[in-house]
């Protein structure tokens, strides 16, 4: 792992991109890393494009700015590719991970000439299959961990079970579904 | 902490000794405040005409009409501002209202 890994999330208000960034921070924290997880705040509008960020590092990171040159970008909603320049500043050594049922190469034309890795995962379908609803953030979390290697996979899966057990203390039926969504996304993500 | 009694806080007190925020650490301190020297008119009590109806005592805005064992006594001029309310309410002309003299105003308020 690099000294510091920076991740930018693009989602739409209400899709859980902020929650996913906080869950990723939690998971990385549990592996002994220093973490930052923060959304960019403004008016709260369902469906409007929103951004959230993660920094994951071995030493405490003192920087408190948004992330302009991320190592990884996660796009929780494919339609954002046509509304936001999601790969702006993205490292060519890194990757963009898109919630899409398409193959990675099919999206390259929509990514403003980005030359790095493109990954896709059909988070909507995985979510429908495992949770019965469209909650794409859990599968996207699994996909970004798989692609970035920012957390050892085995620890991640174990820790997430605990996180979900805590988060869904009053809705335990959600725990297994979320775990299946997470693992399925890690298995199915296409790295192009 | 400066815990001065109210009576010790006078206009010559230094800032080091004054109470923080002007707090007053005791009750009933108004009884130490002399208002008798505000007076330009003074009520005078005529015991011979008084029927002890006690209408006057509760109308006094300060504590200038002492009442003891159900009977009013002579004015306590330390507190009397000379407002004249007692003179107005007395039904028996037992209180007259007279001009204050210069010497008396400058004294301790008592005749």
């Amino acid at each position, binding site marked *: 792992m690099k000294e510091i890994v920076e991740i930018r999330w693009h989602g739409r208000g209400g899709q859980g991109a902020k929650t996913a960034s906080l869950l990723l921070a939690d998971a990385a924290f549990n592996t002994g890393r220093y973490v930052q997880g*923060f959304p960019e*705040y403004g*008016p709260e509008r369902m469906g409007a494009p929103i951004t959230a960020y993660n920094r994951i590092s071995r030493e405490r990171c003192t920087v*408190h*700015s948004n992330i302009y040159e991320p190592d990884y970008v996660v796009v929780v909603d494919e339609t954002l590719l046509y509304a936001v320049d999601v790969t702006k500043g993205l490292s060519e050594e890194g990757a963009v991970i898109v919630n899409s049922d398409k193959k990675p190469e099919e999206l390259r034309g929509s990514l403003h000439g980005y030359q790095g890795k493109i990954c896709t995962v059909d988070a909507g379908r995985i979510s429908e299959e495992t949770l019965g609803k469209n909650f794409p953030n859990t599968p996207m979390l699994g996909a970004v961990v798989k692609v970035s290697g920012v957390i050892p996979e085995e620890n991640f899966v174990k820790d997430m079970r605990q996180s979900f057990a805590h988060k869904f203390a009053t809705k335990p039926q959600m725990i297994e579904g979320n775990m299946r969504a997470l693992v399925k996304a890690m298995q199915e993500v296409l790295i192009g | 902490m400066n815990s001065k009694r109210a009576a010790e806080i006078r206009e010559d007190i230094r800032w*080091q000794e004054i109470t*923080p925020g002007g707090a*007053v650490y005791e009750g009933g301190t108004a009884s130490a405040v002399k208002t008798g020297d505000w007076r330009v008119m003074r009520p005078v009590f005529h015991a011979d005409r008084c029927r002890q109806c006690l209408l006057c005592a509760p109308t006094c805005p300060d504590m200038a009409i002492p009442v003891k064992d159900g009977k009013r006594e002579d004015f306590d001029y330390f507190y009397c501002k000379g407002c004249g309310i007692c003179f107005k309410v007395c039904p028996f002309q037992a209180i007259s209202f007279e001009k204050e003299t210069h010497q008396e105003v400058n004294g301790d308020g008592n005749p």
Partner: protein
Amino acid sequence: MGIRERLSGNEAVAYALKQINPDVMGAFPITPSTEIPQYFSQYVANGEVDTAFIPVESEHSALSACIGAEAAGARAVTATSSCGLALMWELLYVAASSRLPITLACVNRALSGPININNDHSDSMGARDSGWLQLYAETNQEAYDNMLQAMRIAEHPDVQLPVMVCQDGFITSHAIENIELVETDAVRAFAGQYRPEHSLLGPEPMSVGPYDVPAYYMEHKRHQAQGMINAKRVILDVAREFERMTGRGYGLIETCRMEDAECALVLIGSSAGTAKAAVERLRAAGKRVGLVKIRAFRPFPAEELAAALQNCGAVAVMDKCAGFSAAGGPLFAEVCAALYGAAPRPLLVSYTYGLGGRDVTVDSMERVFGELEETLRTGAAAEPCRWLDVRG
């Protein structure tokens, strides 16, 4: 003994308050401080604290409730931001002049207008002369640690002044970061209880906040001013005790790479961390740069700043608050005053930056250092009052 956790700044402050277990919280919600009373009210509902939570209809009433409670001898706390702090304005002065050491968690947000919910320091900077102590935090850790120390400072008999514990809205309040918590038993032993010598519920009757006539008013204000002067020593005493408990040291200011710095920044809050990254990057390139972060803005660390800065060549004083004096921001004016009597003294430049959530980056801070270098080279600040990252 520390507990490794990850919390947002608001969670950290709410958790500190839970550990302290104050007597009264009077609060009204406003972004971005809402989460503090929100989390805290859950602690109250769960019976995890003994605090009387007073929900009110406005911030004016929130602070009024705290004033009454504190005068009664209770340890009272509140939290607010921006327009909420503005609505408390009259009571800020009442609390301070009545010498009631209330604690206010201020989550800094731009004060209208145009209306904006994001971070700058215009809210608490406006209250800088209300008589409250002001401690500012760079991180969630500092917000937590300042809260643990605040009441000990404010309630000290030589101080007796209310305290604002400030952190940057969203930037630290809503960002999850690592934090080291102190065990609750240790917090309670450290924070203790509020035991005023006199209070409305004490054995003797008492009057608080009486009308003051000219014959006494100045003596009361002079006495109040002494509380602020004394606070410098008390802040350091409490910090030393806190360091013995946690290993984390605090002063009135924090210096970073100032030992031989030619160019330096002075700033407050979360952007100091971003600036530290710029300092490290420039140091690696051989530049003699450093920064001074202000933790205690009230009392103002004038002597400490003069000592830290007087050997620099050029200093940028960064205000996250427009000030509108037409002569630079409030921090700039006070740093100038602090250095006026120093010889030698550096060239001073005012930067207004980060207003209403304008992002502050490492690159921006490097640019400021570049401009300072130019100022140093030409020997005079061509434009002493500058705005950072504004289009024009």
